[in-house]
């Protein structure tokens, strides 16, 4: 084969080292941002908030990339334990609190404080964080974050008042990465990650999964993550 020399680059490991590099830079950048933010905290600089938003998004994507890599190479070790669903959601809301303080988007949380779930909390909160991020990007004014018990599952739900998921992200098989939609920039990576992570959670004969539709209480898109 004429391409052998190209193949010997070993793309996956090259990718992970690059991701680590980028992540390190990003960490410095985020730290600097947090410092600037506290220096100028009395003035409301919208650019700061947007900077934080984008940096968080990048960080989440990179984390997901690394985690997927580890899962793919069977290097990821799940840490399943009992967690409070409301604390998990609170953490996500708190992470977005700076951006929310701008006031033009409402992030509402609905959860019984006694609801418990069994999961790898790092993975699940990562998956949810990205999707909340996306919801904030596409919504008009509201995002609802909730968790409830449905039969043998704890269901995390993100609803917004956007115009809804595009056709290619609805009901589609999230086990495959959807085709990249160049016009909207939708990669579907967030959903793909959520699906992968959900499936790692197994209890007896039940397995985690996700669902997407446009039946949000506010008329926009609705994402559901089921944990057994």
């Amino acid at each position, binding site marked *: 084969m004429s391409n052998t020399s190209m193949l010997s680059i070993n793309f996956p490991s090259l990718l992970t080292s690059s991701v680590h590099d980028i992540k390190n830079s990003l960490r410095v950048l985020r730290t600097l941002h947090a*410092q600037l933010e*506290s220096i100028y905290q009395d003035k409301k600089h919208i650019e700061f908030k947007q900077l934080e938003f984008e940096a968080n998004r990048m960080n989440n994507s990179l984390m997901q990339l690394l985690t997927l890599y580890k899962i793919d190479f069977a290097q990821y*070790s799940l840490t*399943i334990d*009992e967690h409070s669903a409301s604390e998990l959601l609170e953490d996500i809301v708190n992470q977005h609190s*700076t951006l929310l303080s701008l006031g033009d988007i409402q992030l509402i949380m609905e959860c019984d404080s006694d609801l418990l779930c069994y999961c790898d909390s790092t993975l699940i909160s990562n998956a949810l964080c990205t999707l909340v991020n996306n919801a904030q990007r596409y919504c008009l004014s509201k995002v609802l974050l909730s968790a409830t018990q449905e039969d043998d599952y704890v269901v995390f739900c993100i609803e917004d008042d956007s115009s809804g998921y595009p056709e290619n992200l609805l009901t589609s098989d999230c086990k495959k990465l959807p085709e990249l939609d160049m016009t909207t920039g939708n990669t579907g990576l967030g959903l793909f990650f959520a699906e992968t992570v959900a499936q790692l959670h197994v209890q007896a004969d039940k397995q985690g999964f996700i669902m997407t539709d446009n039946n949000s209480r506010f008329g926009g898109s609705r994402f559901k993550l089921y944990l057994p």
Partner: protein
Amino acid sequence: MAINLTSKKILVVEDQAIMRETIKHILGAFGARFIVEAENGINAITAMRIDKFDIVLCDYNLLRGKNGQQVLEEARFLKLLPVSAIFIMVTCEQSQEMVLTALDNKPDDYLIKPFNRQQLLSRIERCHARKKYLASIENEIDNGNIYQAIYNCEKLLQLDGKKMRLQLLKMQAELTLKVGDFKTAEEIYQDILHERELPWARMGLGIVAFFLGYYDQAIKIFQDLIEQYPVMLEAYDWLVKAQESLGNDEHALSSLNSAVLLSPQSILRQKKLAALADKTDNLSLAKKAYTATIKLGKNSIHRSSGDYSGLANVYLKSNAASEALKVLYELNQQFHNDPEAKIRAALLETEIHQTKGNKALAQQAYNKAFKLSEQFNRQISRELRLEMAKVFHLNGNGEICDEILNDLVKTNIDDKAFIKNLVTMCDAVIGENYAETLIQHIKKELVDINNKGVGLFQEGNIKEALAVFEKAIIKMPDNHTILLNMIKIIIHDIKTSKPDPEKIMSAQSYINRAIQLGIPHNQISGLQTELDTIQYKSHQ
């Protein structure tokens, strides 16, 4: 907001000035008035010596000196943190590698950088709420009253809804393991696993199997766990213990090595790996592990002169006397005014000169070791004293060797692992039967003391019986039989005379000591119940 920071003493350990400012600013905005800053580990420890803090926020990656984990270990070791204190480790990444390094000393929580004000506050609030909720248990643990802690656990379990249930059960199981009530621990873990497969509960079953001596069963459980959760380091640690208990040192070494590869920053694992590799004559691995231990030890409370002499001895074994000499030099540089280090250095010097054939220098070093050991005798660790007994014997000082061994057997007669090491050494160096005869002799002596005390007790001469045991306990503070009889007599004494809080306290402290020594549950729990009944009555 659930927590008021105004009255809280807070320590912020962080090497970047601007980051310290940021954190202080946030805390200040929520009412904090008493904030102390430390830019490195040493300053943090000093600050904790001066003030008792309610909250410590500590960065893991401190630029110079100790890292956050080492600060935590040292603070806990020196008991600088009140039980109610919150210690939050600030890390850069959700990176598992670092988080997993922690062995025994886990912080109350982790916080990932960068964080905003809401994230910081919510973390502190949650820790505070949890600590407050568990205070009745943690305070008793801190006082060594394990049975009371278990009782308080049960009380909370009866009161509470499901939110804290699993955490309480986990604590209760760990406490029952501590007092050797394996049956209850097993029941708790089984019940949890019946509801849901949770790795820590599965591991609990393995630990129970280990303590009951079912090593094969324990090994199977730990191996299955590791297969399913390849970075579950605690499972490796227990696997190593079980394999060692079966006498399978080679397997233990390989398991331990895997754990060390996963957590190269953990000094205690490196230390253990070095000792095990040394024992099994894997010299290159021993060298590597000793070197790593020494390096990690530079900023750690776990640093020891034994790591240096261990490394030097490995060099001697592999015929590299000059390398050994370099380590000796380093040992002398690193430790001042430490008798153990001085003795180790002198012993090492003796061996190095002997290897090199410098008889006069060897004799000189030996004399130095001899003098030091006479001077510090009992202040020295038992492992080093055993080592010295060997050297004294080899150099014709049989009498002193006998004296040390006699004392070591007497004080450690119930510690099977140590006695086994002692017998191995004696068989190899002094001759077969030496250790056996010594042990038999001391056991007889013990029986005599015991019979004398019990005899006096049965005659109704409580005072003199107590005096016999009190005398014995000073000589042999770790002896199980003497300790248990002592407790029995004190309790009898309290029952037959009028209630005396001082005597009750003394009985409780001996019971706590018995738990610490690992005396089985079935021998202690009855005594604890009796004492509790007395206390209950005296309060009425």
